[in-house]
């Protein structure tokens, strides 16, 4: 067994809508400097709370080209406005395991994520994340023993907006069958979807996510070096972003596993953002393996960088449903 635990311990992935954080890598000015400059405009918190750290290419070019104060201000203005292009992640916070849902099985998951401390202000009409409650319904249907298709319904509820539909994604996924006997689980996921501009200016996005994992004794680890691309929105020209996620956990007993989940966004793969501007999140997380049919995950995430929501509480509740013709099962003991 080299996939995630049979009870879906860590399957899933992060919702990666496109976004743009005005990282200044290449411009000689980091996001911290931006934040200091923008304090008077109440943008510092907004910038610091972005989920994404992709650089804004036009601003960088301008900054490089001129370097004088007027251009700095021009860049800042552009960057400040582009900060609003960020998307709000935190809809599905999960590291994928290589295991896929079994055929004739529907996995229904509810992802509940609350941003305890996050972005507090509207930025160019894009809603803040602070105290936002994101509920995502994920439906994953197993096709065969090596593939599945997932579908997402993203919603958000917060003060002043009420409950809002955010968008939908579809996610086919294939894996190396367990019967191949590979020492690690290997899977490849791709995800395409739409999200409303109120929540992400990049309305159409695409992601490809390799997945490698292994369960060895009481230890489990998984790595998801995801790549993402904007199809429609301001980030179309930014190229491919790099958003890895990883997990390591330990089985305290048969029912309780605990460990750490890591989520990051390094910006464009050809223009990695500075650490300050990267999104970095660490979630101490617990998985409860109470039944093969249930998946329960809970974690509290800390965003240590300025570009990350500070505190997020996440929970996942999943239930497997089998359907279709099932083979006969043994009767209970006795005649």
């Amino acid at each position, binding site marked *: 067994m080299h996939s995630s635990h049979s009870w879906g311990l860590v399957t899933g992935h992060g919702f990666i809508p496109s976004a743009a954080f005005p990282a200044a890598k290449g411009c000689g000015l980091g996001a911290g400097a931006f934040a200091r400059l923008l304090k008077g405009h109440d943008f510092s918190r907004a910038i610091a709370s972005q989920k994404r750290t992709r650089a804004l290419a036009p601003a960088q070019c301008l900054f490089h080209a001129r370097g004088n104060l007027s251009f700095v201000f021009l860049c800042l203005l552009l960057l400040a406005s582009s900060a609003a292009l960020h998307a709000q992640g935190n809809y599905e916070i999960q590291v994928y395991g290589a295991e896929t849902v079994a055929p004739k099985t529907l996995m229904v998951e509810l992802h509940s994520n609350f941003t305890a401390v996050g972005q507090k202000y509207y930025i160019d009409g894009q809603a803040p994340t602070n105290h936002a409650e994101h509920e995502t319904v994920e439906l994953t249907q197993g096709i065969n023993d090596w593939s599945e298709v997932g579908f997402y319904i993203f919603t958000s509820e917060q003060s002043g907006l009420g409950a809002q539909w955010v968008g939908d994604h579809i996610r086919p996924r294939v894996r190396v069958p*367990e019967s191949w*006997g590979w020492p690690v689980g290997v899977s490849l996921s791709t995800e395409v979807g739409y999200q409303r501009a109120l929540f992400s200016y990049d309305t159409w996005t695409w992601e490809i996510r390799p997945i490698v994992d292994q369960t060895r004794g*009481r*230890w489990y680890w998984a790595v998801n070096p995801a790549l993402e691309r904007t199809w429609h929105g301001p980030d179309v020209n930014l190229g491919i972003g790099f958003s890895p996620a990883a997990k390591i956990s330990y*089985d305290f007993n*048969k029912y309780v596993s605990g460990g750490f989940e890591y989520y990051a966004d390094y910006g464009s793969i050809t223009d990695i953002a500075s650490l300050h501007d990267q999104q970095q999140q660490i979630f101490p997380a617990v998985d409860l*393996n109470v039944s093969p049919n249930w998946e329960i995950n809970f974690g509290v995430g800390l965003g240590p960088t300025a570009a990350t929501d500070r505190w997020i509480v996440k929970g996942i509740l999943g239930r497997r449903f089998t359907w279709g013709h099932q*083979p006969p099962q043994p009767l209970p003991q*006795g005649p």
Partner: protein
Amino acid sequence: MASSNPLASTLGSLIAPHLSRRAFLRRSTAASLWIASPLAALPRAQAAIQNNAVLADYTLEISELEWEIAPGKRIHTSAYNGQIPGPLLRLTEGKPVTIDVVNRLTRPEIVHWHGQWIPPSVDGSMEEGTPMIAPGARTRIQFTPRPFGLHWYHTHIHANRDFHLGLYNGQFGFLLVEPSVGASSSARASSRDGWEASPGAYDQEHFLVLHEWDAYFVASDDGSEEVAYRYGTINGRMLGHADPISVRPGQRILLHILNASATLPHWLALPGHQFQIVALDGRPVPTQAKVDTLRLGPAERISALVTMDHPGVWILGETDPELRDAGLGAVIEYAGSTSKPQWTDPASLSWDYRAFGDATPHIGPKPDIALPLVFTSKFQGHGALNRWMIDGKSFPDQVPITFRQGLRHRLIFNNRSMDDHPIHLHRHAFELASIAGKPTSGVYKDVVIVRAGTVVEANLIPDNPGPTLFHCHQQDHMDLGFMALIHYA
């Protein structure tokens, strides 16, 4: 598939001692060992051992083997005499036999004569003291077979996480012990005489061995690792890739089925037909009940009669579609039927040993010794196999378990784990006394499935002194501690 193979006539003499002449003639021409490969047990004349003055009755050669389970599907394994299953060895109860075993492998090996009441020095368990057979070595094994019945032989080495060892490979074969002429001591030992009730004539006899190949680890429902397989076979061939069993309407066929799986219990069905159970683990049963499905834990044997009264082309196969698709099945083809093999799920899966016991269970005298044995597991991680324990200890650590010769023992198998376990006692057979609290009698076994969370009780009067191995016959359970060595006081 009629065959005149002389080694194929068999248990009929055990279970149908009163055959009519017509039935006997039919049997002698139609009885067959339904395997694609020829029997390769070398008879006396062919098994001469240059270094020994006395020729062996049989020679088994253990060697690596490339075996085709279906066109284009070849497995690399090890086996006896270059065939799967190994050759059928026909012995006679009470008549000493000499078997030479040649180990052509690069690892030590050992052959266990499963179901035989023989001394520990030859039983085929290094834990009991049987010498291992060194790589390249030849060893001579001599014992006096008892009891009669359908038994088997197989490797008895540990595999741990190596799927090229132990029962994950092809080292298994039938061992058929026919009763001696006249009254059989073991028949007397059965004390039921139920076996003497003739099941009636039969027209064909087939030996079927279930096994799986290309094992790998998967996550299990109980959270730990377990073993899964890519392929399954009956007599070394996947479903649809062996000659069908050809029958005619009205015929009765006698099936001898062995589950030689390393780890999996199996449920079998033959749509439209019922199985009349004749013997379990080679021992005739008092009540030859008819059932729709068969359950065989690893190492269990079932002998059953089937009346061919539903013409067509049918699959005798695993009820689990995944296992059936992996190859665990055989085709039964009526004469004149040419359709595609048909499968219909049975309404339910039901198996109860008590159905084959005495109609009214005999409650014998109070046992002299009650011997409770508690089975538990220890979780070692989602990425590991469970550790198994008997009375809280994993082999080789164990609490002392002692038999006292001649006394009535009540073995109490208390399975507190979440898995079913096929429990096997070497060199002895026991009589089932209760299943999950419900009494029974008359069913003698050397392997019994103790379902998760239940208790099975069995009676035993030990009469075969020497170290006796007791273990779960699931290879991965045995490897990880589910074993104990019982000593005689």
